[in-house]
């Protein structure tokens, strides 16, 4: 596993020496900042209106700011995941550096885990940048931090699962754009599978709906730690990495 860490560190260095990491951090901060500003604005106006009309109803920072913001963050993952994973293997294949990795005394699984760790760590860093906004919520309000933490756990689990899918797709091509576009399509499909449950309740529709990513975030979003949903995300991660390993193996046998 030491080799996985060596590869992970190189990947992170590479993200940060190229503009990719900085670009993603900037874009995420802008978009998340805008979301935050909107929800906060809504919250403040509603509070003032209630005060003026004298009809006080319970208001919750957790329910009205943090929860919808985190739900939006999972949605942003749809766009950020392909941008992070598309280069992982495609770039190595194009530059020929895959030959260096594949002929070093390192097992394939260590290469894969190293790369996937790096992608996940970068994603967490991006989340952290958005999280800065919450510092203000905690400074001026008194939200409950536990559901927020569970919400973030859900966001990270979901991202890690989609990143594993993206890692797999990146091994299939030399072309980063193809890898990125296919990853986006795959993530989007996983996103919308649950739509079938709207009009169909047959078994296959239920299976398809179960495969849908956002369905499993709902419990985390409510602040409920659900092992059933955590298992779903862990299985997607496992499957994604498993297919990545098979794909690397076939690279060796076929190429």
């Amino acid at each position, binding site marked *: 596993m030491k080799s996985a860490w060596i590869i992970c560190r*190189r990947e992170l260095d590479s993200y940060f020496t190229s503009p990719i990491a900085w670009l993603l951090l900037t874009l995420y901060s802008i978009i998340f900042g805008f979301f935050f500003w909107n929800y906060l604005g809504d919250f403040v106006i509603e509070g003032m209106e209630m005060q003026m009309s004298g009809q006080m109803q319970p208001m919750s920072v957790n329910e009205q700011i943090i929860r919808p913001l985190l739900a939006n963050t999972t949605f942003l993952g749809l766009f950020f995941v392909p941008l992070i994973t598309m280069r992982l293997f495609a770039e190595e294949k194009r530059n020929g*550096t895959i030959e260096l990795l594949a002929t070093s005394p390192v097992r394939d699984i260590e290469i894969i885990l190293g790369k996937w760790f790096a992608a996940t760590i970068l994603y967490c860093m991006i989340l952290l940048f958005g999280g800065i906004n919450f510092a203000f919520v905690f400074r001026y309000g008194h939200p409950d931090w536990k559901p927020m933490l569970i919400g973030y756990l859900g966001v990270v689990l979901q991202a890690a699962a989609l990143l594993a899918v993206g890692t797999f797709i990146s091994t299939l091509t030399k072309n980063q754009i193809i890898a990125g576009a296919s990853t986006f399509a795959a993530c989007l499909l996983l996103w919308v599978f649950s739509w079938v449950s709207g009009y169909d309740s047959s078994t296959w529709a239920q299976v398809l709906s179960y495969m849908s990513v956002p369905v499993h975030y709902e419990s985390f979003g409510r602040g409920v730690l659900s092992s059933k949903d955590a298992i779903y995300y862990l299985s997607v991660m496992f499957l994604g990495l498993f297919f990545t390993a098979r794909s690397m193996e076939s690279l060796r046998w076929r190429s």
Partner: protein
Amino acid sequence: MITVTDLTKRYARTTAVDHISFSVNKGEIVGFLGPNGAGKTTTMRMLTCFFPPTAGTATVAGFDVFSQSMEVRRHIGYLPEAPPLYLEMETIEYLRFVGRLKGLAAAELEKRVAFVLDRCAIADVQHKLLGKLSKGYRQRVGLAQAIIHNPDVLILDEPTSGLDPKQINETRELIKSLAGDHTIILSTHILPEVEQTCEQVIIINKGKLVATDSVHNLQARARGAESVLLAVAARTGSFGAQPVQTRLERIPGVSRVLVKEQLERGAVFEVEASKGQLVRGDLARAIVESGWDLNELRSSAISLEEVFLQLTGSGAATESPEPGSEAPPPSTDFPAPEANA
């Protein structure tokens, strides 16, 4: 150090490498020669455990490439045809990364990095981004990463391709200087490279082993002969090449006489004779006694290029180098026909 037995690699439609067997002793520097598409890279990739063979076995430093792949990888340094560089990294960062990847301990790492920076003469670019380096430097960084863990065996895939003549010479010198510490296999389709760098040569063509021998023997082989160039002219009147040729062919020991060049009042002949026959005196006497002028007589070594063309069956050596040139120019790309696969 390297033993290859019936190594075979089949792709979906083609057989890239077909039952190749050879062995390389410790400390040798071996040229792996063949036209483009002959299966050189495929063989090297099997030796470096990039992919497994379809059939046959190969052992490197006593370890099997298939069942003991991790051990083999620890004992091999590999420079693929395109140096595997991360262009966004600095030279020194990159070498540290490769060193760690090859399993060097932290204490050893800095020593080895300093050593290869010096050995490959890249210390002056250690803080430059790899993407900004010239091709010659990139090649040397590629060599540096191959030797960073002091491997027993070095496998270099066309280490001089795409370099200018000066860089080619520098790279060759560097490779030669590495030969003492490492066993080296280098592939190339450039013949002078083998003649200048290697002791042994393995020739493959269309996936099959054609010859394996020392460079010296191979040069003497094929026509098993020395060749002599004769410039003959008529003393007076017109000159016909035919009678001269017939006369020369009658000399004992001469196996073949070719008209190399027709001059205005003479011709240049290439005479091949079996070695040790010392035909030069007989040739001179025959020419002079028959009333012709002998303007020039010198022996010319049969170049490896001709041997190679014969062995790979690529037709007659029509484009052999100028008869006079001592050594062929270093960058002559050998005009091999496009082989399929």
